């Protein structure tokens, strides 16, 4: 059976985006909640949030890496 490589690429990026998207959504929800509860340490919360976003972002970067380096 011949599978169109475009289909595989589309599935790779589509399925690979689910996890990081959910993760960043959870981080965003948690940050909004935390800042709403104690706005005076907003800077610290945002710093931690950016670290977490970076960690989650890396997963999607691996998906892109695999997507663009395979033919």
């Amino acid at each position, binding site marked *: 059976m011949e599978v169109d490589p475009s289909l595989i690429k589309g599935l790779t990026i589509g399925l690979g985006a689910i996890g990081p998207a959910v993760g960043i959504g959870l981080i965003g929800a948690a940050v909004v909640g935390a800042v709403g509860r104690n706005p005076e340490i907003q800077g*610290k919360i945002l710093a931690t949030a*950016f670290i977490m976003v970076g960690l989650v972002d890396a997963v999607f970067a691996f998906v892109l890496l695999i997507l663009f380096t395979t033919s």
Partner: protein
Amino acid sequence: MISLPMATEALAAEKLFDLGPLPVTNSMIFGVIIAAALLTIFGLAARSSQLWPKSRVAYWFETVTELIKGMVVDTFGGDEKRALRHFPLLITLFVFILTCNLSGLLPGVGTITYNDTPLFRAWTTDLNSTLAMATLALATVHIYALKEIGARGYFRHFFSGNLKNPMNIFIGLNELFGEILRLVTLSLRLFGVIYGGEALLSAISVLAGNFGWAATLPIMFLEIFVAFVQAYLFMMLTASYLVMAVSHGSEESETHVVQPAGAKG
């Protein structure tokens, strides 16, 4: 059949010429150029730095340095003496990685070719260089831990509790494995994000055809954001590894005062 465009960049950095037994790649050349430029500009700023800075360069660089110092001291739980001991390494990592990440977006990088190989390539889009930086950072962490808590404390950091219990041995082996995994994640994250971003840029510009300049603009802004986040992340993770390396295992040694670890991430 429609096929998506391949990234124009190769996964590995291309060799330009040999310097004795050492193959010199395009990312090495660009990294050295960036390092020299940074050293020059920071040296200039340091030379014109004074109590009441009149030079604008000195003013801006002092502001940046002060900002990063605040973040590092926060990570070390407010212990300024210990934070300042590691501050040179951390700020070097941050500034160098940030500049290298952003340098990949400059016009001419990857497009100026010499004998059909790109002459320049961002330093952080090469796995060798990110692995080298991660090795340097983690070697610093371990040497610092050995110096601070001694060989026994260092050993107890991994194998804590009663060693007759096989569970503790297993946990210790897991910790050791995690140490190796740190090296892999630290290097692969930086490389993957920056390289993936550049591959995304080239793929989008091929897809958009004549309107590549407009289509890549939002991705550019995303890349600038990601460059900042990744540089910050690398510095902060190194800092929190430094904090964590001495925060455990030192319960046994009475001489060492344990600071509350403000480790994040």
